[in-house]
């Protein structure tokens, strides 16, 4: 449960999760994509490293200001594709030419009849690359992940599809509850909330 408090009341932040558990992060909500991009830029300048921004759709430029490197997914897919080609070719040529040689349609069964082996190479390559791409996205994105401290913040829960959030995590070297709360307020963050881990026995 979190209820909005005025800044003057200092450190008595609304709390998500159970107070008994450790503090996970302090989060704030932002109204527009502009605000969150600005906020992220500021945090980056302040030198925060352990913070995350949550948006309902990809906000252009956010990744840049957060200095996130380009995704390596494309290289994984390239690797997947190339290995697929090798797998397909060996699956076709080695048995057909060497293990189970058969006379079919008076055609040779080796590389000189390569064209007949191409379609399957193409199909397999595309399939395996696609699988690599999706699997890569899921794993690199830290998924599947079925519980996350942020879920304890029901405002986030309900608003994730509409608004923009930033959460600065407690283990950030520059993290102190006071400074972070202050900073988030200054950046125009709303509903600044202390997000605690949930007690293991609670769901």
């Amino acid at each position, binding site marked *: 449960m979190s209820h909005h408090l005025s800044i003057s009341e200092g450190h008595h932040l609304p709390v998500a999760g159970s107070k008994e558990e450790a503090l996970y992060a302090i989060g704030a909500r932002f109204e527009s994509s502009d605000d969150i991009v600005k906020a992220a830029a500021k945090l980056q300048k302040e030198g925060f490293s352990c913070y995350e921004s949550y948006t309902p759709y990809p906000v252009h430029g956010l990744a840049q200001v957060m200095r996130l490197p380009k995704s390596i997914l494309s290289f994984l897919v390239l690797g997947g594709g190339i290995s697929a080609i090798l797998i397909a070719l060996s699956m076709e040529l080695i048995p057909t030419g060497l293990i189970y040689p058969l*006379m*079919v*349609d*008076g*055609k*040779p069964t080796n590389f*000189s009849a390569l064209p007949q082996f191409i379609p399957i190479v193409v199909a397999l390559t595309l399939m395996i690359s696609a699988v690599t791409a999706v699997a890569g996205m899921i794993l690199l994105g830290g998924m599947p992940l079925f519980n996350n401290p942020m879920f304890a913040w029901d405002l986030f829960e309900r608003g994730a599809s509409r608004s923009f959030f930033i959460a600065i995590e407690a283990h950030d070297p520059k993290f102190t509850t006071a400074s972070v709360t202050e900073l988030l307020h200054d950046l125009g963050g709303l509903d600044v909330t202390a997000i605690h881990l949930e007690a293991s026995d609670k769901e």
Partner: protein
Amino acid sequence: MKKIFQHPARDAKPTLWRTQGERENTPEFAESLAREFTAGATALQEQDDNGLSRRNFVRLMGAATALTGLGLTGCRRPEAHLVPFTKNAEWTIPGKFLYYASALPTPVGAVPLTITTSDGRPTKIEGNPLHPASNGATDAFAQASILDLYDPNRSKEITYNSATVSRAELDAFLEKVRAAAGTNGGEGLAILIGKENSPTVERLREKLTKQFPKILWVQDEAISSKESDEAFDAVFGEGNRPVYDFEKADVILSLGSDFLNPSETGLGFAKGFAKRRNPEGKMNRLYVVENHFSLTGGMADHRLRIPASGIGDFTAALAKVIADKTGDTDLAALASGYKGGGRTFSDAWIKGVADDLLAAKGNGIVIADAQQPAAVQALTLGVNKALGNLGSTISVAQTAIKPLSTLSDLSKAIQAGSVKTLLILGGDPVYSASGTEFPNSLASVPETLHLSPFVDETSKVTHWHVPAAHYLESWGDGRSVDGTVCSVQPMILPLWNGISSIEILAALAGEKVDGPSAVRVTFNTYSKDASDAGWQGFLRNGFAQDTAWPRSIPVFNQAAALPLIQSAETAAASDFEITFLRSTSADDGRYAGNSWLQETPDFVTKLVWDNAALFSPADAKKLGIQDGDMVKLTTGGKSVEIAAMVAPGHADGSISAALGYGRRGVSHVMENVGFDVYPLRENSKLCYRTGVKVEKLAKPAYVFATTQEHQNMEGRNIAREGTLDQFQKQPEFASEMDGEIAPPISIYPNPPLTSDLQWGLSMDLNTCIGCNACIVACQAENNIPVVGKDQVRRGRDMAWIRIDRWFSSADHSEENLEMIPMGVMCQQCESAPCEAVCPANATVHSEEGLNLMAYNRCIGTRYCANNCPWKVRRFNWFDFNERPLDELYYGPLAPKGMADSLKMVKNPNVTVRMRGVMEKCTFCIQRIEEAKIARAVKAGASDVTKTPLPVFKTACQQACPSESIVFGNINDPESAISKSRSISRTYTSLNYLNTRPRVTYLARIRNPNPAMPGADLVGAANRGSEHA
């Protein structure tokens, strides 16, 4: 496909070995191998060399004679002869075939056969090449007759007033009849027999006549040759029969005679004709005058369509012309003596034929249909005499055939009440003589007995029914066309208590029969060597040496011929006649229960499981008849409802219908199959009846099933033909019809076919008469299932080899219509389109150039069949072998499994295919492999490729009466196939596809007479067609 282990040449030290012996490759091992695979079982021709079947047979007979007289009850079959496999006789090798000689008795003459038995059951029938009157070929009927043996619908019990009785009671009855005859000399006893040509039946008949002189002997065949017999007896003297030598004939005129049809006139004719049909040598010329397209008509160089009842007029007209030209007064007298229906024909045509026949004086043959009136027969012989053919191309055989009373005599006798006991041995007169008074009169006979394979129409009205033994399960003998006596011996115990007519006659004659004894007694009377050795030779070779009818120069008896001709009653001119054809599937009805034959298409109409009333296109238009329309044919107070079919090339004013159909309540195979036209027939002698009224019925159209729906080549050079001088000017004309096609190059280096054996097959369209023998032979050899009319109608027939029958007409008229039969089986393409597309690799290529089918790998995508340009692949749409044909759509709800007896006919070397797999011709690979095993055995340690392969044939090749199929190793330049492929007429069908088929065709050559009308339109099937 059965996995056959073959033995390639073994290296000195093989890398793989089964025994130390093989590893060391010791001679003992080679010998043991030889014992394992006894050589040469493949090859009939090899019998004398490897002596397998002979030696075994002598042993068999040894055992037989030793065991005879061990109190085997009654005149029963020789159990002792036929038990060996249950006792596992030492000379049989499980899985190896044994071959026995026998013969199929037919009204024309016994067909000499070699029976293949495996593990004691006959599985395949081939001709007997040793027999002088046979070239080892058979007709479709002989091939299919083996199925009748195993027909589960055969009658199985002796019945009296349709109550099952014991064999003893029958014997008692026969004893009673004999006793009664003993008292009154056979008064009131009548015996009706078919034309069996069996010396033993003859002997017993004479014996009985001696004992009981008053017995009334009646002989009747559903399709009898009474008319011609009468003429021959009169003109040549009693018992003398003309023998035509087509090998000598340059010019042949057929007057409605289908002499090339092996079932009509015995097998010899097609062979002799084919020998002279080769354009490379001196080619004969064939004129045919007929009312419906027959095989012979299809071969004709010039064909005239006239009603069958007009043949007499034509003959007379021809005779007049010839008489004028030769000034032959005798012939002129004969010609003017004939008062026919006064029909007239194209003078140019008649003159052309006459000139040609005269030009070939002494080297011609004029032959009339055996069912034309005696007067026409006599006239025809007169023409032959005038042409000097008698003595050169036509000789006479002095037979012992004596005329017996006819069915009408019998009917009269019955009506006179002079017949107390009637024994009908064979035939089904109530069905086949339904147009006569016989069926009604039969009821008034106090005691009647009928011997027949089915409880048929006659058996239903006779008091006694006795199941007839199949010729493969009883002892007998029969004279072949040339008179040579053939042995008929049992291959197996009678499956269902069958009894042969010989046994019954012998019982009447008070002769005890122990197996072959009755036949043996007869044998001693005619054989030069009556010793046991001679007898065993008779059984082994299947015929007795030098027992052919003595030949002599025919003496034409003008005095007898003239009155015969004058006695001819005028055929009343009417708008329609009907001609009764011998069915190409049911013969006269005796094979109506044979599903193989029922599913074998008619030669010309390609109709299966049916007969039809054939109308000429003109008549059909006139009457507003289309295929399948029901018509009512009425003549002589009798009428029949039958479905009509438009038959190109049929004579106007004439209707043709095949006999032998429309049988009811006999066997479920015969149910709802065709229409019975016997009621329209007044006797069994004439092939036609005039004064037919046709009435189109307002009934729903009848559905026919045909295996070929499109008759026209659509301008594609599929079957190729040319005329003789075209061929002489341009010997390569056939292959040149390919036109401009891309040079046969392949973007791939094709892997070489490494085996020393490269199989090829060539089919000579010039001698192929389209007689279906190959189709049935293939069906029997390769366990091809029957699918039934409904499935054929849906285009799902399974025949591996089919005969496409093309009609072509250079001027697109009905007049100059030509027929070209073309056998099509898997072409064994070296670069096979079917192989490329099979995802499962179920059809692949062998080192020997065969396109193989791996049934157990086939999943039935059917892509191969789609991609086959010849559409020769067959798919098992249902479980045709395991499910009843009328319950195919019930799926698992239908009873599964085939009749036990039908399992016995299957070839053990060929897989019985299941539902969902593709199948097709593989050049009888089981025979190929058997030959290769034999060769490997013979080679032993030596180089197998240096060893000659035992001679063997594919099933279709072996059956072909005109020897137009040649099969063999194209790698061997000396082989017949290599020679055949080198003939200039050779062409490859669909050559432009560059699939490099192993099947090649020899183009058909016609030999038109330039003087004839429409000569320029002969042999022009491919004229004006596009290339490719």
